[in-house]
């Protein structure tokens, strides 16, 4: 049974008198331990899909089965608990709280899961050392570079040991070298057996993942699955891909 199972997901918004179909019948299976990217131009519905997968939003219709739980009609409170325990988010703008130190930021998810102060501190430091940030634990986000902030954000996403990590344009605000480092970090997480999902508009970044799902106009337009194609791009190829002219994968 897949870890995440979407069946005929629809999401419609009403803006003024107009009905917008952000998602129009998306069905998707994601197995545990997969490394996936969702790709599509802005307005394609990929963010909406990530929000629904990430339990930040609920679909208008359709069913979602996450790890054996039907979450498409869960209450806000249940969704909050799932976000807290099973899901880690990494955002384009890092989204660290500027008033807290790095360590306090990493501790935040554990505050909401009700851990004691001592345990929080220990786990936060462990998580920070897994992204080589333990020496910056007392800094404020504003004292860090973009790459360091994103590593702190990854540490925060990992701290509650989630089953799946969603990264929304995680390299969008970084220079390309730092971006590669961050992508390497996601690859490492994938190697360790976690499910990781990248959301991006950039085919080059999507190329690092074995499986790529392209969204267009709220539908899955194209899917590259190594299980089907057998052609697995390796992470080492990313720099090559970047230097070459990338083949248009959307065609």
């Amino acid at each position, binding site marked *: 049974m897949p870890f995440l199972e979407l069946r005929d997901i629809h999401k419609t918004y009403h803006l003024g008198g107009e009905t917008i179909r952000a998602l129009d019948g998306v069905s998707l299976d994601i197995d545990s331990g997969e490394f996936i990217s969702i790709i599509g131009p802005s307005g394609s519905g990929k963010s909406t899909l990530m929000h629904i997968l990430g339990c*930040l939003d609920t679909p208008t219709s359709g069913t979602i089965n996450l790890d054996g739980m039907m979450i498409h009609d869960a209450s806000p*409170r249940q969704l909050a*608990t799932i*976000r807290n325990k099973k899901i880690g988010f990494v*955002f384009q703008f890092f*989204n660290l709280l500027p008033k807290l130190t790095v360590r306090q930021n990493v501790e935040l*998810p554990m505050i909401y899961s009700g851990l004691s102060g001592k345990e929080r501190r220990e786990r936060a430091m462990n998580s920070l050392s897994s992204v080589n940030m333990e020496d910056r634990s007392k800094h404020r986000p504003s004292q860090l570079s973009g790459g360091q902030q994103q590593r702190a954000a990854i540490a925060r996403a990992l701290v509650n040991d989630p089953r799946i990590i969603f990264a929304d344009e995680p390299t969008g605000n970084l220079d390309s070298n730092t971006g590669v480092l961050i992508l390497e970090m996601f690859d490492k997480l994938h190697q360790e057996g976690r499910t990781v999902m990248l959301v991006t508009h950039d085919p080059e970044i999507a190329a690092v993942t074995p499986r790529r799902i392209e969204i267009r106009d709220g539908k899955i337009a194209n899917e590259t699955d190594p299980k089907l194609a057998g052609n697995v791009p390796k992470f080492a190829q990313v720099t090559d891909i970047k230097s070459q002219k990338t083949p248009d994968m959307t065609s």
Partner: protein
Amino acid sequence: MNLGSIIESGLKEIWAHWFRSLLTMFGVILGVASLVTMSAFVKGKENLLKDSLAESGGLERIIVDDNDDLPDYQKHLEDEANGMTLKDVYALQKNAPLVHSVTPVIEKRSYRGSLRVSRKGKRVRYASVKGTWPSLLEIEEHELEHGRLFSDMDDLLANTVCIIGTQIRNDLFGEYDNQGEEIIPIGEKIMINYIPFKIIGMFKQYMSEEDRKKKEEAHAAGQTVARPDFAQVRAAYMSGDRQSGTVMRIYSMKNSTIMIPINTLVSKLDSAYDRGSNMDRSLSKVAMKIYDVSTLEKSLQQVRNVLMQTHKGLEDFEFETQEGFAGDINLSIQNERISGMFIAGICLLVGGIGIVNIMLSSISERVREIGIRKSIGATNMDVFLQILTESIVIAVAGGIAGLIVSPILVNTLASFADNTTPPVMTAFAMAVAFGFSVMTGSLAGLFPAIKAAKLDPIQALRYD
């Protein structure tokens, strides 16, 4: 999320904007301080009024006065009405078992011109000479500090002896001698209407607790304190501060009393008296004390029944109880309390609106933060509690600051208004004020907290 970390994050948030939070707290500080201050002043006044009620005999004291205004159907019998006499006193002693003690009083006052109390050219400005029995001491709550009471024999023989109040002593002898010792003029002679009277006793000095403290301090420092004389009291009474005037008057009048045996007054000071029978001499009043306040109505009825007999059915007397005074006290305290509460309530309301305002602007600054918190697992309840806690923390901090400020405020105001009643701060009033501040914080935080909890996490994350 446990309460400790909620409060911790609330305090952090407030500390991060300490100046803004301080300004917000001012409303609550003022509200709490004004509530405590108001209740301190009202309580002080209440204490003083209740003291003075007890000082003038308490609720158990009843006075029977003459009443010239007979009911209409008895108007034609006016000549028969000869007011209260000793006969009534004896009749009441025998026939009114609910009355504890009863005593006749004939009173002469100096300011009407009919009385002159003097010694060696010095004259008392105001004196009230009361010809009476020794039991008046108890009824009017007098305390003999020096010397002795007059005896029944003094009364029988119409001895020219007197017991004086301290104000009389002050006017005629001065308060302290050269060595700073209090003058106790027992055995000295004073002249009442040119007749020498021997001083056999002196009452203690009646004054409010506050005055007593002031006096002791001043005496320790070697000075004397100018106490309000009767003219001042009259001025206070006339100028509209009726209650404090009444209180001052009670103390001042008690200090200006001269008590002499009733027979002495009748036979020595009554110039127009024909010396027929003392029993027919009309009394200024009959003072009595009942056993228990709860039987006041019954006692009054009993006294009335007896007096209707001795007065041949003529109702030429009236009762004067202290119930009116007690009622006045309660009413005026209640009014002041309500108006004070009203002002303090408005202060707290303004403070609460200030908190609402600041919390709303605080959450609109932190929409993104709320989005982040929700995305990593904060429930709506967590966000709600966080905002509510911040608001309560502001109010509680303001409340504590208000409690700290209030004694300073009370003392400052008390020092400005020297001759008002001394304020009394009570723990109860402080607890109530603090409770109100917490309530204000909770109510004020409610709306912003609901607003924050309802934020959509996706919208909030996109917000700049």
